[in-house]
């Protein structure tokens, strides 16, 4: 240990003085400046774009479901489209008939009844109906003739003329036994005929089915089936 007396002796020992001529050569490289974060950074722009894209997809999907609501409104309040329904000479059960096709008397026929165009049915009966085979060409022509004769008031047209007209009507419709998926492919364009056509609608429809779970069974609830749409109805 060094006592206080020896500390005085230390001052008498050789000591150094700083050489002030020695300076750091490039002091500018030591200076720093904090990085300023720009308000419109790339991350924020990407997040905003993703948000807008998501909102757009949601809006698009919701707009895509409008045709369903429109068809459902016809069933629940027929007076809104009374003119359309009245122009149909004979509406058949489980038959898809649209405004344009009514004008041409184009119809996809399975059963002929005199009841309402939209009926309440349960899923089992619908499934059985979907598996039924569509009658061949000649039977459809005969049904059309019978329908026209039964519906239309007596006119000056002869039976040959009516038959020719019925054949002309039925010619446009490809009548052949199809599977349920094939029928659905025909129904979807007809159902969307009223709405606007959009690009990528097949992809969007598949997404909406996945997101909204439309493929799930509805259980024992009663539904209204219109075109390719199943609308649950409470008792």
């Amino acid at each position, binding site marked *: 240990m060094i006592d206080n007396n020896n500390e005085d002796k230390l001052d008498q020992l050789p*000591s*150094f003085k700083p050489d002030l001529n020695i*300076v750091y050569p490039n*002091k500018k490289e030591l200076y720093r400046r904090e990085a300023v974060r720009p308000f419109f950074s790339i991350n924020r722009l990407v997040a905003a774009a993703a948000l807008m894209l998501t909102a757009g997809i949601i809006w698009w999907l919701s707009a895509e479901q409008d045709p369903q609501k429109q068809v459902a409104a016809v069933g629940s309040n027929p007076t809104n489209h009374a003119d359309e329904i009245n122009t149909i000479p004979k509406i058949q059960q489980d038959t898809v008939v649209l405004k344009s096709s009514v004008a041409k008397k184009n119809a996809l026929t399975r059963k002929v009844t005199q009841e309402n165009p939209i009926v309440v049915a349960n899923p089992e009966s619908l499934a059985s109906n979907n598996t039924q085979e569509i009658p061949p060409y000649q039977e459809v022509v005969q049904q059309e003739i019978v329908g026209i004769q039964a519906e239309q008031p007596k006119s000056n047209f002869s039976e040959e003329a009516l038959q020719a007209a019925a054949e002309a009507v039925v010619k446009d419709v490809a009548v052949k036994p199809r599977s349920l998926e094939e029928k659905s492919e025909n129904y979807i364009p007809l159902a969307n005929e009223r709405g606007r056509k959009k690009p990528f609608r097949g992809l969007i429809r598949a997404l909406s089915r996945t997101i909204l779970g439309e493929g799930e069974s509805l259980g024992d609830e009663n539904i209204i089936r219109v075109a390719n749409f199943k609308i649950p109805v409470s008792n």
Partner: protein
Amino acid sequence: MTEREYNACVDAHADGVYRFILKSLRHAEDSRDIVQSAFEKMWKNRNAVINETAKSYLFTVAYHQMIDHIRKNKKIQLKDEFAEDAGIEAPIYPGAKRDLDLALQQLTPLQKSLVLLKDYEGYTYEEIGKITELNASQVKVYLHRARLILRAFVGNPHNII
């Protein structure tokens, strides 16, 4: 520590740290690198560094980096000493200043740092102890021994001539 305080610290202490390291290492490029590394480290840790203790922090970092550098480059230093012995001329300083510089090279790195911190920067024993991770008593003892070596070297006429 804010950006402004850091830049003020560069203005105030960059020369002092550089002088201290250069006197110890006697190599300008390495001294610049060590000073730059020390300031870089202080900038990265500026949120944890208090402005009042910035100088002490800077010298501590620089001192430890210098010790690491000396350990890594021991072989190179030995080669330099061999070159001096082989007859390569050393820089000539006039008078007592040259003698002191020659005497300083006789000290160990720790003794050299203690002398320079005490004489150049005027640090107290406690502050030197914090920088070199010694207690105040050890600093006093090591410093006293260093000065004795210096006096012996300077007082010997053979070393002066």
